[in-house]
């Protein structure tokens, strides 16, 4: 793509990534969460692919990096679900405990990040998964439509 698009995307990309991570991390006190934040981050990756072309992107960002990231996010998520197996599967074992455990005062309150028990950690797990997965889909389909073989 033209020079203007490349410089603009260079400026915008860090902002998009930070905004995506912000949505993932604040999923339990403000609108958003794992899926929405991951999608914002993946839109940043899509912007890179459009601006710099899928061939040059594939030299730096290999597909199996993304699949490792995706598997890691998925394992965090199902690991936390298994974590509550002492009482029951998907039990929120951190609510009220030391880590992320504060219980917010009921009714309208300013919102404290250190609440929610397992939910923020699950948000991070799902965010990593969606981030890796959607970027992999965009990258692979861009490579496929432009006829370049995907390196295994």
């Amino acid at each position, binding site marked *: 793509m033209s020079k203007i698009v490349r410089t603009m995307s260079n400026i915008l990309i860090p902002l998009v990534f930070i905004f995506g991570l912000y949505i993932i991390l604040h999923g339990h006190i403000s609108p958003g969460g794992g899926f929405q934040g991951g999608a914002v981050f993946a839109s940043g990756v899509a912007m890179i692919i459009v601006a710099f072309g899928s061939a040059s992107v594939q030299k730096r960002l290999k597909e199996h990096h993304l*699949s*490792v990231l995706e*598997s890691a996010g*998925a*394992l965090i998520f*199902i690991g936390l*679900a*298994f974590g*509550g*197996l002492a*009482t*029951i*599967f*998907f*039990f*929120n074992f951190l609510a009220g405990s030391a880590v992320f455990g504060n219980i917010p005062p009921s009714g309208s309150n300013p919102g404290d990040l250190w609440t929610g028990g397992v939910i923020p950690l699950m948000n991070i797990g799902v965010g990593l998964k969606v981030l890796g997965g959607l970027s992999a889909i965009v990258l692979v389909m861009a490579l496929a439509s432009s006829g370049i073989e995907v390196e*295994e």
Partner: protein
Amino acid sequence: MDSLVTHSSILAIAIPLLAAFLTPLASKVGDRARNTVVIGALALAEFLVIILARDIYLNGLHVYTLGAAATDLTIPEHYMVPVRIILEVDAMSVFMGLITTTISLAGAIYSISFLKQETGGDRFYTLLLLLAVGMLGLEFTGDMFNFFVFLEILSISGAALAAFRTRFGDATEGGFKYIVISAVGALVVLFAVGILYAQYNVLSMAALAQAIQYTALDKIALALLVVALAMKLASVPLHMWAPDTYSVAPAGTTPMIYVASQACLYGMFRVLFSLYGVSLDTLAIGWIVIVLGVLSMFVGVTMAVHQSDIKRLMAYHAISQSGYMLLGIGVGLAVLADPQALASYGREAISGGIFHIINNALYKGLLFLTAEALFFSLGTRDLNKMGGMFRNMRYTAIFFIVGALAISGVPPFNGFTSKLMIYESVYNFSPVLAVIAMLVSIVTLASFTKAFQSAFTGPALPQHDNIREVPKPMLIGMGILAIAIVFFSLFPSLVVNTIVTPATDALIDQAGYIGAVMGGA
């Protein structure tokens, strides 16, 4: 040990899922590590389903509330509606779970040798595990929206698996048809779930079953659900996708994609018997299911007779065999309202239909695997190009004979016992249907002898004399199913009493299904 039993219903779903997430990482270590993870996870799931089944046959329905403080805390303390997702496993769901895990294990072992020539093996196994998870989740869940999510999982993994061999044009086409039909079907199911949620503001099947009053909206939701699941089931008016998808699916996945459509059959019966149950006018809906069954039987077999591609032939037979199940259980549904007819032949018809599900899954799975073995060694699915394989592929020929005899209902085999149960009970209901069913079974026998003659006996074509038997894992995969068929044929009464009758009672007993969650019974 008993804590394992209480958690067995969720672990049977979660452990293959965990293995599916681990497979990409395990395959970086090596093919052998990946195979052990996959086969180990499926074997563990089979073990968990077996101990779950034993526990259910001993002390009844199994309820598991996810995320609550205790497994049976289905409804919050002083509240009247279940809030969390509840896994409700009764004898019918565990019956389907046994089929799913057995066929998945056989398919996974069968696929080991197939993957040596193909790239992308670890993704193939991830999808195979996810297909098994989708089926098990669909069978064990007691929540309507969860039913839709697992329906979607098995559709997407089935479609991606069907299109695995991307170098064949018809593989991508078969996969595309499967995903289009499944996507439209799943969206229609979601729309029906939305309608039910809009009326009763609850998503658990048991709570919905208690609240349903069969209003005009409920009729619309029922119509949408039955049409969508019939589309996924490949019953006749919407069966066009089945032969294309079953004939292209690679190695051990064809029987699994077929069992996925049987899981949708279970879903349809769960909706008809447990969600609506006696509240719907059972005669009319029963007759609709019967008509679907008879159409599937008849059209399936007539289309199958002149097929030359061996897997398309078996795909059309699969459609006609699922017609038998629809007929048997449709008759049971039709007489659900009056207890006298139900006791005399309705219960027999339903248990015949249910027994036919497991028999058909076993011998249809075996036949698909033998057809794939022929394709693996000969490289073609066209019956005219085969011939004289009996000498070269002795074991595959024996497995084909076992499967063919079982499907055409030859007396000692299990296909005969379940078809006999269906004939007897359907005869009391309406003799015409029983006669059609027998006719279809005879035509099935004819077309399978033709297929066997052209594939195995007959003149050996010159270019096939160096073909040798298929590698060992494929024989083990086929062997598991053959042994199960022989066991079912030798002890039919034992199998019916331990597995099939509890499933029939569970399907009919809607009050028990509701009571377990809503605390009534």
